Structures are given as structure tokens and as C-alpha cells.
């Protein structure tokens, strides 16, 4: 957590305390002074009625009686047959309150040895109870998460926004917990202990939060029978475990959300800066119109029909699973080319639904895919890549095997030499990963938690994440372009549930990027198609459409060989391609050795 946030939180807690103090003072002081008055009256009356008692005698008596009461004695019933308060059941209950750190205090050790033993006992018992709570909470939490996941899938089938679903499932689970562990015991205590409803609720809350004042203690009257106390203790344990697991779940969600937004923003900014630099350098080198003007809608319109090739880079958006994203802290590829085209607006729409949550135990990513941002670092972010990949590797949630054996070279984005992208390694991995995909024959599998595709030898990083829904966006990189180009395509109207393999490719080196494309996955529009001018090798497009040996996925489209050098607009192919099935790019015949991208 960042420093300013932390300081703000601390200030918040201080303010909260002061506010509470003020309210309590105003609420309680009047009652307190009234009680004081009443007591004085009683004392005066007593002394008056019984004149043989001196004030000193009385105060002595009272002092000793109070001390006895504080020791836990019950002096009101002065029966001579003495039943100790330290019978086994009560002592068991006392130990339970010590270990759960509730500490009612209605019974406490008075002897030196008792206190010493209490300290040692608690030293061992509290961590042990912590473990127990963790274990119970874990199992409960798993069941809880399953239930939440089931609920979420139910909701998501109706296309409800994932964030909304997450919030609702949290609220629902809290409500259920409250019902079982708060409402029912309140009613029980109200009946058994003969308290008012408010007092019973007060006791339940104070106990379950482990505050444990001790002014109300269930089972303090021993007439309730010996079975009552252990039952109360059991309720305490399960209630504590349940609420601990809920709190952990919510805390994780919040933490991931905040990290995600922060990481996104930072990465975006960083990559935008890099990319701008790149573009400007390249524009100087190649004397092309400033690609940054591509953001200009008008210019873009003009350039569209001058385009030579429609390179589409398919980029699978990350339905990301927390840190399993392959780039960035949360697996977001940077959205570098924010275009004003309608693809962008679609992107926004899709992004709104993103409710990615990283939860160490939760496999629920219903909306994550849709909401993921894809970012590609154009530079040789091999380091960054490696770091994020390594980070993802170390993520406990990264259950799936990540066959990232890309080397740290900048995952080259587009190959200028017109080598086509290959997808065979990825498709292999994907096919084994994909289980029951109703949509396509390829590996886009909804319901899969997370999968990472592999890299092929050329070092292109291909990661796929499939959320529960499987929807993902793909980014295609223009093969022929030297620039890191990021295409974004939104899963169109069609199926947000169709998983789209994500393929981040970057580098400014002229190397072909094997791009796995999955049939059936959406293609992304390439925003900077203008940059295709630059490339001399023009075979990429055609290669991409060609079936390559080893490629598992069928290629529905015939690759078109076109020189990128030509500046003819080829809009139709792109449109065609856009509308048709996904085209897996073919493998480059010989992947060029990757070299570290130097800026």
C-alpha cells in the first residue's frame, strides 16, 4: 500500500476513534451521573435506616465485596453451599475465551500462578487457534467460494456486469453469514438468557468481533446446563472462521482492484511514453508521416484508404487472473494505440465490464476477460516481461502451466520480413488445455481458469488467458511493421464468451512474430495500419493465412500475399477477415534469432 494511502487510513482511524469517543461520551455520561445519584441516595438511606452502621464499616464491607465480585464470585446469593465458578465447564469456556482472544473477564485468574499459567497458555494457544481458524476458514472459504462462483456463473449467464456480480455475491455471502451466525444466535440467546433483543445482539456482535467486554456472557448462569457452554463455544469458532474468510475474500478483491487500477495507469503511462519515443524515432528514420497523427480521426480516415495491408494482430485480451497476465502487474498489455475509431469505443464498452479479481483461492473470473486491458510493451521489455512472467509464475494462483520460454528479447512484434506467425506451439498447448469449449474447436475454452500459451522459438510471447467466460480480446500485431503495433479488437457483438487468445507481441525488430490465432477468435483491428508502409517484406499477410505444418488449428482464410510496401488500401480483406473466423497466423519458416531490442 502506498504511503499516502496509508497515512490517509491512519488519519481515518484516528478520526473514527475521536468521533466514537464523542458519541459515547454524550450518550453515556448522563446515564452515568444518574446512576451515581441513585447510588448516593441508596447509601444515605441505608446509613440513615441502620444507624449502628458507620460509614467506615460500610465502605470496608463494600470494598471487600467488590473485590470478591471482581474475582468472579457471586455474592448476591449468600448460600453456604458453595459451588465454585471454576468447575470444568466454566474453566473450559474460560480457556476458550482466552484462546480466541475474546477475553470476557467475568472469570479471571486471581492467583499469581494462575496468571503465569494464563500467559504461557495463551502464548501457545493463540497461534494454535490462529492456525485452526485459518484451516477452518479455508475450508469454509472454499465452500463459500464455490457457492459464490456458482452464483456468479448464474448471474453472468445473464450478461450482468462482472463487477456488479462480484459485489452482489459478496453482499449475498455476507448476508447468509449474518443470518446463520448472527440472527439465529441472537434469538437463541434472547430466549435462553432472558435478555432483550438488543442486549442479545450486542452480546453476539461484541463476541464475534472478539472484543468481549464481559458485561453479558452467555452461559454464565450455571443453571443453563453443561451442554450450553460448549455449544456457545462452537458457535464462536465457526462464526469467527466464517467472518474471517469473508473479510479475507473482500480484502483480496479490494487489494487486487486497487493494484490493478494503479498498475494499469502506471503501465499505460510508461508504455505510452516509450511508444511515443519509438514512433517519433521511426518517423524520423523512415520519413513517414508522423504516426502520432494517427490518432487524428480525420487523418485516419484519409489514411485508411491508402493503406496497403491490413495487418491484423490478434491479441488475446487477458481475462486476467490477477497477476497471471503476462505483462504488467496484472497481466495487462498496454493499450498503446488508443484510436478514436469505433474499435476503441467498443474497447471501452468491453472494458467497463471488467471485473477482474485476483484472489488466491478464487478461480472466479467471470468478467475478467472482458475487462482486461491489453498492453503491449513495444520495447524490449524483456526485463519487464521476464519480471511479470516470473511474478505470474510465482503467483499461487498461477496454477496452469506456463510454458513461457520466450527469451528475454523483445518479443518482436512484427516481422518485417514477412514471416508469418506461427501458432503451432501455442495451439498445441492450447488444445491440450481446452476442454469443453462449446464454441469453437480451438482451444478457446471458457471455463478454463487460466492458461498460458507457450512461446515458440522465435520468442514471441503468447499467452492466453481464459476466464470463466473465456472472452478475451485479441491483439494482432502487424507482422510487417517494424513498429510495435497494437491492435485492439473488441469482441464484437458476438460472443463475449468466446475466448480470444492473447498474444502480445512487441519489438521493433524485424522479426516475424509467430502469432497464434485461434479460429473462432475475434481479430482485432489494427490501428496503425499505416505503418505497414515501412516494411519491405510483404509476405506476412499471406503467410499468415497459410496453413503451416504443425499448426493444429484450421485456417479458414487464404493468406494473401501482399507487399506491405504498397500503399494500397486493402480494406476489404481486413473486413473480410474481421468478420470471418479467426485466422491463425502461420509459422515463420525459420524464426530469426531474437536479439535484444535496444532503443
Amino acid at each position: 500500500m502506498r504511503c499516502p494511502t496509508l497515512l490517509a487510513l491512519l488519519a481515518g482511524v484516528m478520526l473514527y476513534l475521536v468521533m466514537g469517543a464523542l458519541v459515547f461520551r454524550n450518550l453515556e455520561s448522563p446515564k452515568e451521573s444518574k446512576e451515581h445519584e441513585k447510588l448516593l441516595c441508596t447509601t444515605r438511606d441505608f446509613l440513615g435506616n441502620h444507624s449502628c452502621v458507620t460509614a467506615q464499616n460500610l465502605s470496608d464491607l463494600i470494598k471487600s465485596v467488590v473485590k470478591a465480585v471482581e474475582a468472579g464470585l457471586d455474592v448476591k446469593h449468600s448460600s453456604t453451599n458453595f459451588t465454585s465458578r471454576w468447575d470444568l465447564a466454566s474453566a473450559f469456556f474460560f480457556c476458550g475465551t482466552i484462546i480466541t482472544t475474546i477475553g470476557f473477564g467475568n472469570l479471571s485468574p486471581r492467583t499469581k500462578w494462575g496468571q503465569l499459567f494464563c500467559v504461557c497458555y495463551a502464548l501457545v494457544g493463540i497461534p494454535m487457534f490462529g492456525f485452526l481458524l485459518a484451516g477452518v476458514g479455508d475450508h469454509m472459504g472454499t465452500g463459500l467460494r464455490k457457492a459464490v462462483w456458482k452464483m456468479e456463473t448464474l448471474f453472468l449467464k445473464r450478461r450482468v456486469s462482472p463487477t456488479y456480480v462480484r459485489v452482489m455475491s459478496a453482499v449475498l455471502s455476507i448476508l447468509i453469514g449474518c443470518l446463520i451466525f448472527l440472527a439465529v444466535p441472537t434469538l437463541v440467546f434472547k430466549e435462553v438468557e432472558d435478555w432483550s433483543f438488543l442486549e442479545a445482539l450486542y452480546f453476539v456482535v461484541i463476541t464475534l468481533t472478539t472484543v468481549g467486554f464481559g458485561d453479558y456472557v452467555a452461559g454464565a448462569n450455571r443453571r443453563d446446563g453443561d451442554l450450553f457452554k460448549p455449544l456457545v463455544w462452537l458457535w464462536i469458532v465457526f462464526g469467527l472462521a466464517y467472518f474471517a474468510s469473508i473479510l479475507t475474500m473482500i480484502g483480496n478483491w479490494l487489494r487486487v482492484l486497487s493494484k490493478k487500477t494503479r498498475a494499469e495507469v502506471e503501465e499505460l503511462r510508461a508504455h505510452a511514453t516509450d511508444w511515443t519515443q519509438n514512433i517519433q524515432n521511426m518517423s524520423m528514420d523512415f520519413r513517414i508521416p508522423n504516426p502520432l497523427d494517427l490518432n487524428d480521426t480525420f487523418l485516419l480516415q484519409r489514411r485508411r484508404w491508402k493503406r496497403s495491408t491490413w495487418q491484423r494482430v490478434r491479441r488475446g485480451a487477458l481475462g486476467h487472473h490477477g497477476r497471471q497476465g503476462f505483462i504488467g502487474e496484472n497481466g495487462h498489455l498496454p493499450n498503446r494505440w488508443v484510436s478514436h475509431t469505433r474499435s476503441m469505443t467498443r474497447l471501452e464498452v468491453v472494458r467497463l465490464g471488467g471485473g477482474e479479481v485476483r484472489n488466491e483461492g478464487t478461480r472466479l473470473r467471470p468478467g475478467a476477460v472482458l475487462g482486461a486491458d491489453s498492453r503491449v510493451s513495444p520495447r524490449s521489455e524483456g526485463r519487464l516481461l521476464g519480471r511479470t512472467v516470473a511474478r505470474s509464475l510465482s503467483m499461487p494462483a498461477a496454477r496452469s502451466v506456463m510454458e513461457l520460454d520466450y527469451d528475454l528479447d523483445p518479443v518482436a512484434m512484427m516481422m518485417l520480413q514477412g514471416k508469418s506467425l506461427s501458432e503451432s506451439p501455442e495451439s498445441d498447448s492450447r488444445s491440450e488445455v481446452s476442454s469443453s469449449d462449446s464454441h469453437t474447436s480451438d482451444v478457446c475454452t471458457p471455463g478454463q481458469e487460466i492458461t498460458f500459451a507457450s512461446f515458440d522459438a522465435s520468442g514471441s510471447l503468447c499467452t492466453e488467458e481464459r476466464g470463466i467466460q473465456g472472452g478475451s480480446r485479441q491483439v494482432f500485431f502487424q507482422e510487417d511493421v517494424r513498429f510495435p503495433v497494437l491492435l485492439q479488437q473488441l469482441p464484437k457483438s458476438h460472443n463475449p464468451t468466446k475466448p480470444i487468445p492473447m498474444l502480445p507481441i512487441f519489438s521493433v525488430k524485424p522479426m516475424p512474430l509467430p502469432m497464434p490465432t485461434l479460429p473462432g477468435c475475434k481479430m482485432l483491428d489494427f490501428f496503425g495500419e499505416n505503418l505497414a508502409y515501412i516494411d519491405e517484406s510483404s509476405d506476412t499477410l499471406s503467410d499468415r493465412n497459410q496453413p503451416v505444418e504443425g499448426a493444429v488449428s484450421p485456417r479458414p482464410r487464404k493468406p494473401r500475399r501482399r507487399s506491405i510496401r504498397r500503399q494500397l488500401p486493402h480494406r476489404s480483406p481486413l473486413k473480410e477477415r474481421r468478420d470471418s473466423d479467426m485466422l491463425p497466423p502461420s509459422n515463420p519458416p525459420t524464426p530469426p534469432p531474437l536479439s535484444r531490442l535496444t532503443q
Partner: protein
Amino acid sequence: MSSGYKSWILLTGFILFYVAYLLLGALVFSTIERPVEDKLKSDIQVLKEEFLNQSCVNATSLENFLEKVLQANKYGISILPNSSASSNWDLASSLFFANTLVTTVGYGHTTPLSDTGKAFSIFYALLGVPFTMLVLTACVQRLMHPVTYGPIGMCRQRFGLDPLAATAVHFAILLLLVVLGFFVVPAVVFSHIEDTWSFLDAIYFCFITLCTIGLGDYVPGEKPGQKFRSLYKISVMVYLFVGLMMMYLVLRAFHRMADLHGLTSFFQLPHCDEDIEEDKEPIIEAGDEDQHEAEASAKPLDPASQTSYNTINR
């Protein structure tokens, strides 16, 4: 799967062991405390007899009187002549009460009397307890870097210890410092300020407070005629907060150490691995990257260690 079963079996084993532990504690407490209680009870009986004998008070009226006194005492009101004139609910005491409520210590020496107070404490606690936990966790996360990761890294680099030994040594030193600084020293201070407390009482109080048990049999600042009562109570509050933070820090360092030594995997308990990554991320500078990378990549993907999280992998 076997690891799932194993986890269940371990959990059941834990529960049984826990129940046995409780029974043992109950037995010991019973044996220790019962004789003392008997003696106290008989003393009180004798006192009452004497009082009744020498005065014209009859038993019933005395008991009524005592009941009222005890009721008032439960709320912290005393009729003893030298009781403090200050209220239990002035601003400092209310702040102290709110603090004990929010940190879940909950002494119980003062409790809300009115119904409104009780209702308000319910909501206050429901909001404030998670809030405080969040703040404490955040503080501990930030503190972990200079206190734990830094010294451990330094240990490894300068003394060339391997990670396991380094963490163990560091944990031992941390524990010793915390015990000295947050138990022994405050106990000495408390035993000086509070007349009726011995050193053992003060250590007992520190321990019971910092574990948030808060029995309430010893509460600082309740002595009548306490000088600088407000300041005293507020400093106890600060001590409570900082002490809690240090306890969490020690717990987390212990958890990390257990992770490294494989204890948590052995007992199939949740790791704090992800926290490590998170904690490290904000402070990763360029120089630390390699180390972080190396550590991160060296961390094994251990599916067995995350059994419980795998179960909803559908």
C-alpha cells in the same frame, strides 16, 4: 485426491488437539484457582456475618443494598469516599473505550449503559474492527520492508547466511526486541505508576492486552486520584496500537519464516506468499530487480502447497 484428504485429516487432527488443549487448560485452571476462590468466598461470608452481628442491619436489606452497589460498580461507579470524581465517560476515557472496542481488546471495565449506547457500539464495532484491521495490516506491510526484508537481505549479503538461517536468526532477534520493548519495559513503567500492581501483574496486563484478550481485571488509569489521567489513558492507547502492530509484524515474520522452512506446506496451511510479492513490488527499484527476479523465479510452483485453493478449479 489424497492431498485433499490429507488436508481434512490434518484439520480434524488440529481440532481434536485443540479440544484436548482446552481441556488441559480447564483442568489446570480449575486446580489452581478453586482453592483461592473457596477462601475468598468464606472470607466474604465471615465479613458479612460480622457486619450483620455488630449492626442492626438485617440480611435482606444488606443484600439489597449490596446488589445496588454491585450493579453500580459494574458500570464503574463507586461510592467509596476517595473514588475519583472524574467520570468514566469523559473524553479521554471515551476515547480509550472506543480504542478498546475497535482493537477488539475489550476490557469491559466500562461498558455502555444505555440502550442507545449498546446499539451504537454494535455499529461502531462492525465498522471499526475491519477498518482497524485493514490499517494495521497496511502498516505492517509497510513496516515489513525495513524491519524484515532489509535486515534479512543484509544478513544474507554481509554474512553470507543462507535464507533459512538468516530468517531464523532475524526472527529470533526480532522476537527478543519486541519482548523487551513491548513487554518488559512497559511492565516496569506500569508497575511504577500503578501502586497496586506488581511486576508480574504488569507483565500479565501487557500480555493480555497485546493479545487483544483484554480480560479487564487490570486496567491502567482506573485508580482514583490518578494524576494526568487523560494523558495516561491516551499514552496507553498509543502503546496498545503500536504494540498490536508489532505483534502482527512478529506474526507475519514468523509466517514467512515458516513458509521458507516449509512448515506451512507441511501443515497444509495458507501461505503468505502472495503478500511477499505484493510487498516487494512497490519497493522494487532497478537494482533490486535481478534479485527479485531470481527469487521469484526460484520460488517453486508447488501445486501441493495450494491444495485447498485448487478445489474450485472447475
